[in-house]
């Protein structure tokens, strides 16, 4: 259906926009910036902060530009006296209930309210301080997220994120009037509610009310400690986003610079989670084929399909709370981060002759749920906590700044060996559909001896930002040992963002759809949109990051996990075979049901 064009004037300049466009969008078209706080490109319109108010000729009230559609002949003024006075009042009001301890705030310099306050030069503002002393008591119960109500401006972006994007609703609005705040079920600590630690709320919080639990000091201390051997692993999605926090354009890859910076920071070895991403494919691919054989040939009813990926710790916790009856569908594979930790403190420690107890494993992750994951009691198979500290992409950028490194000028460097070699299949783990694509590249070849039948190995149907993707691959010309798969149509599905995951789980639970394999990532866009990635985020930003990931894949020499030589080596020297005894001990785990309240 084509839309009508609506003609209006903004600050006396004519503009024509499609019917249904908001004043805010129309003003952007004319390059008039209207400040916003509660508005976010990923979320429904709230219109509650009111900083975007504008004057519409003939109207008694100011209009919230974000929430008001244009109409024919409308005359809008974005900077009239009324607008300026009101907007300044609104910023002052927000500041009066905001704990403006800016210099001590983790978001200092990256706070949207601070920017507005600075823009309007609000110095010694007139209104009374309304910050409640009890609001300054932080919720630090979660290993991933810190909640500081004294910084909250009630824009409800976090609530909409948690409800609309993630379908979790751990955060909600409670009480009214002067007691209104953002809270949890019965005001319980975050760690005791259904929060999945995905951190998407952090990515959208305009102030310092929601931030990651940061471990920067702990990591510096480990680096400075001469008796510790500190190895660092970097997740696939960090290399395509780190630059954003260091003055580099969105979508620019900084893999080599990131490695160089990590070496300069003083890590003993700079290794790659991509290596264990490849390892994950070997284990998970084999697990899938084994499950298919047991189900299709042995008719083993204890085997459940579809199998679901288990790389995303936010998704895992979601499933533990929301669909405990489907926990057996999860792959028993640990996430690449945790496989890395377990392998680093056993195989790798032996190889380089370091005692596991002297080794500190640090992860650079696009994720805050990884902070929770590394503390799970299941993740101590090396005899120690397999991964010691998890830093977000953002925290790494801070460390780089603290160290005075001129990131842009760094020469590219390579990962250390071993545990540094990886493939294109591993790097695409960072985008939604990537694990699926990597798994198909390997599994198809194991079964048929031939490459997947897609041009340049690019399995396009599983790529893209659609919330739920479905695809089928017909398996033909199998090797004799896989003859039961001949002609089988392998049905797969992919979801990213937990609201989409929930929709897909409903299909599975009700039996509406039958898949063999499902990939789920807890965050919108997959890890590239993770809760630990640079802020801001938007559909456009995630699209650019995805393009960077696929560009990185296409330039890799090796693009299939089973061709990673270091992976072959670890099986030969240490693990034996996928799903073997040692793998079972170190690389696999089980999950447990959790209550919803």
């Amino acid at each position, binding site marked *: 259906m084509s839309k009508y064009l609506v003609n209006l004037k903004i600050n006396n300049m004519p503009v024509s926009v499609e019917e249904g466009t908001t004043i805010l969008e129309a003003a952007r078209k004319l390059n008039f910036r209207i400040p916003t706080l509660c508005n976010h490109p990923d979320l429904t*319109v*709230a*219109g*509650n*902060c*009111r*900083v975007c*108010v504008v004057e519409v000729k003939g109207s*008694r*009230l*100011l209009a*919230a530009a974000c*929430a*008001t*559609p244009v109409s024919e002949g409308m005359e809008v003024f974005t900077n009239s006296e*009324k607008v300026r*006075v*009101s907007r300044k*009042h*609104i910023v002052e*009001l*927000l500041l*009066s*209930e905001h704990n403006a301890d800016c210099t001590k705030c983790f978001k200092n310099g990256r706070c949207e309210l601070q920017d507005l306050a600075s823009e309007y030069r609000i110095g010694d503002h*007139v*209104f*009374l301080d*309304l910050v409640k002393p009890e609001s300054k008591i932080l919720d630090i119960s979660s290993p991933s997220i810190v909640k500081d109500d004294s910084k909250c*401006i*009630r824009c*409800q972006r976090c609530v909409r994120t948690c409800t609309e994007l993630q379908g979790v609703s751990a955060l909600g*609005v409670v*009480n*009214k*009037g*002067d*007691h*209104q705040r953002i809270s949890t079920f019965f005001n319980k600590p975050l760690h005791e509610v259904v929060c999945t630690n995905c951190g998407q709320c952090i990515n959208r919080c305009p102030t310092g009310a929601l931030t990651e639990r940061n471990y920067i000091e702990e990591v510096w201390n480990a680096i400075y400690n001469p008796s510790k051997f500190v190895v660092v692993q970097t997740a696939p999605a960090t290399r395509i986003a780190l630059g954003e926090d260091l003055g580099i354009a969105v979508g620019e890859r900084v893999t080599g610079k990131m490695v160089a910076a990590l070496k300069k920071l003083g890590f003993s070895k700079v290794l790659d989670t991509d290596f264990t991403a490849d390892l994950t494919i070997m284990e998970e691919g084999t697990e899938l084929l084994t499950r298919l054989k047991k189900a299709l040939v042995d008719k083993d009813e204890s085997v459940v399909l579809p199998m679901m990926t288990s790389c995303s710790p936010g998704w895992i916790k979601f499933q533990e709370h929301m669909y405990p009856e489907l926990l057996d569908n999860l792959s028993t594979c640990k996430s690449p981060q945790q496989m890395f930790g377990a392998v680093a403190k056993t195989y790798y420690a032996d190889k380089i002759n370091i005692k596991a107890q002297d080794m500190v494993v640090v992860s650079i992750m696009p994720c805050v749920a990884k902070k929770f994951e590394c503390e799970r009691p299941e993740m101590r198979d090396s005899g120690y906590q397999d991964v010691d500290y998890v830093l977000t992409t953002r925290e790494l950028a801070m460390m780089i700044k603290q160290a005075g490194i001129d990131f842009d000028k760094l020469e590219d460097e390579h990962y250390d060996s071993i545990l540094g070699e990886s493939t294109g299949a591993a790097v695409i783990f960072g985008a939604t559909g990537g694990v699926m694509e990597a798994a198909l590249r390997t599994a198809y070849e194991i079964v048929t001896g031939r490459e997947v039948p897609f041009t340049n190995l690019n399995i396009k149907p599983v790529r893209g930002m659609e919330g739920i993707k479905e695809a089928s691959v017909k398996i033909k010309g199998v090797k004799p040992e896989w003859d039961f798969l001949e002609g089988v149509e392998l049905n797969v599905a992919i979801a990213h963002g937990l609201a989409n995951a929930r929709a897909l789980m409903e299909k599975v639970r009700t039996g509406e759809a039958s898949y063999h394999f499902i990939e789920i990532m807890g965050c919108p866009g997959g890890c590239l949109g993770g809760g630990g990635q640079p802020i801001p985020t938007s559909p456009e930003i995630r699209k650019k990051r995805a393009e960077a990931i696929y560009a990185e894949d296409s330039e890799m020499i090796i693009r299939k996990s089973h061709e990673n030589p270091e992976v072959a080596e670890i099986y030969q020297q240490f693990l034996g075979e996928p799903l073997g005894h040692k793998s079972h001990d170190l690389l696999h785990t089980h999950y447990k049901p959790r209550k919803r309240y």
Partner: protein
Amino acid sequence: MENNLKKVDIIFEVDENNTPYDVLLKTLKRPADEIILDLIDSGLKGRGGAGFPTGLKWKFARNEDGDTKYVICNADEGEPGTFKDREIIDRVPEKIFTGMTICGYVVGAKEGYIYLRGEYNFLLKPLSKKLDEFNEFLKKNKIDYKIYLKSGSGAYVCGEESALFESMEGKRGEPRNKPPYPTVAGYNSKPTVINNVETLVYTTMICRIGPKKFKDLGTSDSRGSKVFSVSGDTPIPGIYELELGMPLHNFVDEFGDGDVKAVQVGGASGHCVPRKKFNDTIIGFEGIPTGGSMMIFNSSRSMYNVLHDYLEFFAEESCGQCTPCRVGCQQLLKGIEAVKRGERPPAYLDDLKKLTGTMKIAAKCGLGQSVGNPFNSIIDNFREEIIY
């Protein structure tokens, strides 16, 4: 001076020979457009306080496409000092049901809802009994319409129509962005007519007595009569139906105790009128409109306490979603306290008055927009009482 205050008996009048049931059956035989014309002709405006022309509202909803439309009776009477709907619901509920059914017929709705204030739950049982009888009557007469009851939970803001829809839909009662307006997208995002209890009764009565008798009452801007809730320093508090457009001094002569200092017209969100302005204040849409609340204060009352009470009420009852209202109400409350204690200079009151200017034009709904009414009218007229 002669008191020409005119008492009227339309709302509560009972005529055994012409019951609401009779009016209903008669009216449903008339063309819908004719009913709308009658309502427009009568000049009836919404009695909840905002005063939107009722006939137009029905016309807008009638003109909307859509198979599903709703009629909602706003019985969330929460404005401090208002208690007239309670009496209407108690005494003449059939007139409300009839108005809703006529509205349903006119706009093409098959369902009506009465959203009853949470604090009026004691009315729920008798009301549902009468409603059952009415629904039974509709069924017997093959009228495809049914009225349901929904109970609020005690939030003042849910009297705001879009917050009321949210509440009915089971969500947190927070006002929506407008547009869209209810006649386009209201309850369940369907075209909805939402009218105050009293308005619906007047529609029934206009259908019975015709628009002429109604518009003969009142003034050109404020046609007809209105039910007032009279409270405060009066020897005769209670519910009175009076002709609209009366000068306030007539009202005070009738209801005051001889020592009236001020009248708060329109409840906490209304205006405070001091004695010196009684003569030239008209109660009606051309002067000071009211949803019915008339609170009388005599010289023993502290206007600081009055204002403080109102502001405490708003700071508590703001839904909290929009900045101007949530924070503004608190600043006004804490602000007059600070001035009273001498922690802020008297001139701070002027800063606060400017703030109400912002609240009036930038708050999301009528709640925040109207807090300036009591604030400014009390500060302007009783400034010394606030400061000292």
